């Protein structure tokens, strides 16, 4: 076996620092940071896209961008924010925090974890690479057939879109399995399911949602791939296809995806509120159960995205009903959060401000969501700015505010340094104001008839004043995000030292040092209560750092996850080459398959850890 393992052409990486150490890391904390920085970088890209959109719509009949460019911008803004910002930002936190919260040294499959990240990154880069070969995709983030078929989309950008999404989906599936197994199997002694922090609970639910929701998208994208590359007829209407097939598959993925985006934020808020209210979560079992119910029901509401497609009375009634039902567990969560603050001693540090902002904004997004369940009302509001307002309240006022609460809450743990409270409060209030100035008027634009996805409108359509207000709000929102970046930079350079538990929080991640050792806990803690750091009898005390020779053995870095992810994205590139020249494409695909198989082989026969280079040297 050892001989087989050593077939590798390149020696196994062992560097603890430098670029190679990041490229080959399998440490969940480093992977979490990689996800976080990637999300931040893409959020700047997605933000710029939205600012150009707002510039174009600030006044009637503008031509700052062409209609083709405008369509690309809203397509990539949506795709980027969903798949390359909010999802990886959630992944950043669940990578970094879940093993710490459950008292584990790493995730169950550290190399698979690295693979998830790289395959996600490469998929995202592949999609964005379309910009350099012509134009961004311009078919909407939802890519409705038959607009995406060769007959109606002549540019190749759609191929980049579907291949990029397909590749990123592999990363999401792998992460889903990894975190389900990690949370179910690697909990510290005494950490029963009903003692887990809520963020870990919501991550567990998200893991199952990823596992169950991505296959329908994979199938839909595969059909589209076969249509576009091999002239098949899944969505070819002139061959009799029913284009609603795409919509059903897409939204069976798409609605659970909404909960993939919001549940991590709900988990963060459920951890932040007790810490800053100085009391336990109100109705912990109900909040957990409500999360599980939302996860299940999330698979039964997809056709409310399709009320105007002519589903017929029975289907409309069923999906209107299920959509109303899913509001119940959501309401339960919200009331329990209010119950958590009731009777507390509320400390309004920045994480708490964002958590409270989350509750208020998510409430508004939830209420406008219930309005859409009223089918007749939806027939007027579908595909108008009312919908745009609704889902930005859910995904920005909800997800992003929740993620911001998490960032301010856990940044000291991740970096060992505090963020400025003063800048943080400015950030919160400006973001809160900017967000509401940007998105609240969109409700009114919707009910006075402004459709989505239009690159222009006339002065006599009566939408100019509100659009100017919305565009002004987007500048305030942008400025608040710049304040965040300044705050992060200052903190990294000269932020106040954080200490292990600056917020006096109750969960295990605060028991270890800030930032944590690469092995997380010197001694795996034993847990005796739901709030181990608050419960004096059950207090967890982390011993001082271990001397190097006593450090626990952690999995060594590996090239193979990176190589395998690379070969997978290159298979997708091979298809693009095949379009241009069949033989070269096939040759390229064969080479990449060999590389991929070699990577799997190397991965399988790689021992979990190598000894440190110094030790190797001493033996020879």
């Amino acid at each position: 076996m050892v001989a087989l393992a050593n077939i590798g052409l390149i020696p196994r990486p062992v560097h603890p620092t430098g670029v190679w150490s990041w490229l080959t890391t399998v440490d969940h904390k480093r992977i979490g940071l990689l996800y976080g920085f990637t999300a931040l970088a893409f959020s700047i890209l997605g933000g710029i896209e939205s600012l150009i959109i707002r510039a174009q719509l600030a006044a009637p009949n503008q031509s700052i961008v062409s209609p083709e460019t405008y369509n690309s911008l809203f397509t990539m803004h949506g795709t980027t924010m969903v798949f390359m910002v909010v999802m990886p930002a959630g992944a950043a936190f669940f990578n970094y925090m879940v093993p710490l919260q459950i008292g584990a040294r790493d995730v169950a499959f550290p190399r698979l974890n690295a693979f998830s990240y790289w395959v996600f990154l490469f998929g995202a880069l592949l999609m964005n690479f379309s910009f350099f070969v012509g134009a961004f995709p311009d078919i909407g983030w939802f890519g409705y057939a038959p607009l995406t078929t060769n007959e109606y989309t002549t540019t190749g950008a759609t191929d980049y879109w579907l291949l990029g999404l397909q590749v990123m989906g592999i990363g999401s599936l792998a992460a889903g399995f990894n975190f389900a197994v990690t949370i179910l199997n690697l909990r510290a002694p005494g950490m029963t399911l009903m003692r887990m922090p809520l963020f870990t609970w919501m991550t567990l639910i998200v893991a199952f949602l990823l596992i169950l929701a991505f296959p329908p998208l994979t199938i839909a994208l595969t059909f589209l791939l076969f249509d576009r590359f091999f002239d098949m007829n899944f969505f070819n209407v002139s061959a009799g296809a029913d284009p609603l097939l795409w919509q059903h598959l897409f939204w069976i993925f798409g609605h659970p995806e909404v909960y993939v985006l919001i549940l991590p934020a709900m988990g963060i808020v459920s951890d932040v509120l007790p810490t800053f209210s100085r009391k336990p979560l109100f109705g912990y079992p109900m909040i957990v159960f409500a999360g599980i119910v939302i996860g299940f029901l999330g698979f039964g509401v997809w056709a409310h995205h399709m009320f105007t497609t002519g589903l017929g009375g029975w289907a409309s009634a069923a999906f209107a009903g299920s959509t109303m039902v899913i509001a119940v567990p959501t309401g339960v969560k919200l009331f329990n959060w209010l119950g958590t603050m009731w009777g507390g001693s509320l400390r309004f540090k920045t994480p708490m401000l964002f958590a409270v902002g989350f509750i208020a904004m998510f409430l508004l997004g939830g209420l406008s969501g219930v309005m859409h369940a009223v089918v007749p009302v939806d027939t007027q509001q579908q595909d108008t700015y009312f919908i745009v307002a609704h889902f930005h309240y859910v995904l920005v006022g909800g997800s992003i505010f929740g993620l911001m609460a998490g960032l301010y809450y856990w940044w000291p743990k991740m970096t060992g340094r505090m963020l400025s409270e003063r800048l943080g409060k400015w950030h919160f209030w400006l973001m809160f104001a900017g967000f509401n100035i940007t998105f609240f008027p969109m409700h009114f634009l919707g009910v006075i008839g402004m459709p989505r996805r239009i690159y222009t409108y006339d002065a006599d359509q009566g939408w100019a004043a509100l659009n100017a207000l919305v565009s002004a709000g987007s500048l305030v929102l942008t400025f608040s995000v710049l304040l965040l970046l300044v705050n992060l930079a200052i903190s990294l350079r000269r932020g106040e030292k954080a200490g292990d538990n600056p917020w006096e929080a109750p969960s295990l991640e605060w028991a270890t040092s800030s930032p944590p050792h690469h092995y997380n806990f010197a001694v795996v803690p034993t847990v005796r209560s739901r709030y181990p750091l608050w419960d004096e009898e059950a207090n967890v005390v982390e011993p001082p750092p271990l001397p190097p020779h006593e450090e626990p053995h952690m999995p060594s870095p590996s090239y193979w996850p990176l190589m395998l992810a690379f070969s997978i994205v290159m298979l997708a590139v091979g298809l693009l080459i095949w379009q241009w020249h069949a033989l070269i494409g096939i040759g390229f695909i064969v080479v990449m398959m060999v590389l991929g198989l070699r990577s799997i082989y190397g991965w399988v026969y790689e021992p979990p850890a190598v000894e440190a280079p110094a030790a190797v040297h001493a033996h020879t």
Partner: protein
Amino acid sequence: MPRPTLIRPTLLAVALMAIAVGMAACTSPLTTFEPASDAADRILSLYILITVAASIVGILVLGAMAYILIKFRARPGRKAQQIHGNNKLEIAWTIAPILVLVAIAIPTMVWIATSSSRAVADDAILVTATGYQWWFEFEYEGLGPDGGTLVTANELHLPVGRQVAIELRSVDVIHSFWVPALIGKTDMVPNRENRLEPFVPNEIGEFWGQCAEFCGVAHANMRFRVHVESLADFDAWVAEMNEQTRADPEPGSAEARGKRVFEVLGGCAACHTIAGTAAAGRIGPDLTLFGERTTVGAGILPATDENVRAWVSDLRSVKPGARFMPTFADTLSEAQIADVVTYLKSLRVP
């Protein structure tokens, strides 16, 4: 630290709402607040019901939250009460939203049941609306010559007070038929036969329609108009549309020269129909009685001579991405285009 309350954002939100409501009151031709049919009336009353319900819930919960945030803010000497939950309370706030939702679900289900089973009246106007990238075609069943089909494009004429039943089709990608004043939207999906709930326009006027499903480059410019008119006006329009022998324009006039360009020199007739003349193309929009239209380019520009000329000369300068129709500035002289415009504008109900 400053007194941490939610008063500031709440005031801000209220102020913003007031401004926004004020602005929304300015009329928009696509507003959902000025219904002109029985169907749109019903939707608006449901909209008001759900909006009031949602606003009450929102204000109550936000109010409770503001109270909590102020009352329980950290102060010297305050100890947080270590409560873990309260079963009765939690059951109560599970049941409360259920009751609110049932109250909303009942009218929703009643609407679904009645609107999806609403019968088509015997004297209903039957229309098939078809979406093309990026314009609309309307076919009236039985109103054409000899009980056949009457075809028009981009401007739908309807008599006030008569039920209309519209079938929706698409020949290419998915479009959506939406006239907020008359009826909520329903998608036009290729290979599917969707139907709008039959409705009765109850007000005379010109109403704006818009494609509401993203359908490609010129989606924003895929609009249409509905003219709801008196029965007499509607009948006159139908009769003139069906006129099979249209008198030729006076020889030598601009109209006559324009007709010749339209039918022969420019080749327009290969794609467009003008009933009662030699023009019988079926690729582009039907142009019979074009002079009666208030817009050109699928509802995007007022049909002034200048705009029609701009359209014929170089349609992609006003509707980027438009398919098929050539840029006639390349092949026809300015005078010829002007003649075509004069001819088209002369096609009116006498």
